[in-house]
């Protein structure tokens, strides 16, 4: 029984993906540095990618890997724009605390 549990299967990969996603979620919710929040979003995307590839592998379906490639491309684009925003914010305010930006009126 224990041997069977230790052998990695579908559930193990999904569990790892769930843990990564939860850490990313906590990072987005709790951290105050904008850059770390962006990094946590990347973590969540990675967790989702892992789920896609896992199901693709266990269902013998290549679509999982294909969607993962698309997600990676979109994530790279998202990171570029996010970082450009952060750079603009930092140049204008010299501030990275997310709570500093919660009041939208100038």
């Amino acid at each position: 029984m224990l041997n069977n549990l230790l052998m990695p299967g579908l559930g193990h990969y999904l569990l790892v993906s769930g843990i990564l996603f939860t850490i990313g979620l906590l990072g987005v919710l709790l951290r105050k540095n904008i850059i770390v929040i962006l990094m946590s979003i990347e973590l969540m995307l990675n967790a989702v990618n892992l789920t896609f590839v896992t199901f693709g592998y266990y269902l013998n379906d290549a679509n999982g890997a294909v969607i993962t490639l698309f997600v990676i491309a979109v994530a790279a684009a998202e990171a570029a724009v996010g970082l450009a925003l952060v750079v603009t914010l930092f140049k204008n305010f010299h501030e990275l605390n997310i709570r500093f930006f919660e009041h939208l009126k100038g």
Partner: protein
Amino acid sequence: MTQALTFYIFSGISIVSALMVFSSSNPVKSVLWLVSVMVGVSGLFFNLSAPFVAMVQILVYAGAVVILFLFVVMIFDMKTEGKQVFSYGTFSSGLKVLFAGGFFGFVVFQIFFQIDRFGYLVPDKSAPQFEVRNLSKIIFTDYVFLFEVLGLLLLVIPIGTVALSRIRGGTHAE
């Protein structure tokens, strides 16, 4: 046996590094731990016999995205002010943790009680489903529209990025 060993190594690397990304007070350290997460996840892809996806993960994430992060952090020397890395507010933080914990509990519950339904799923190791030829065939037939839209996105992104970084002042000009 090898697969079990590599699974535990790579998943351990990625989870521990993810925790370090979450808890490091210095953004530079966070970025470096993020590299380690990417390498760990790439190893897991390799374990799932998707070497091409694993390589693209390293190429795009570790080779470009994370270097961009590191670049921005270093060029502006963005240190967090003091040791307080989490946003303040005990009650709201408690709510957030509760929400995330609830989500995680839901995922674990689903995995433990639904996994038996997928017990019949046995990966066919001889099938070349994750081979590059196969993947590209799917991309350029079933998902060709998505692929074109992605190309458009990649054209829009640099323009937007250049426009953003050239903004002088705006409504918040000092």
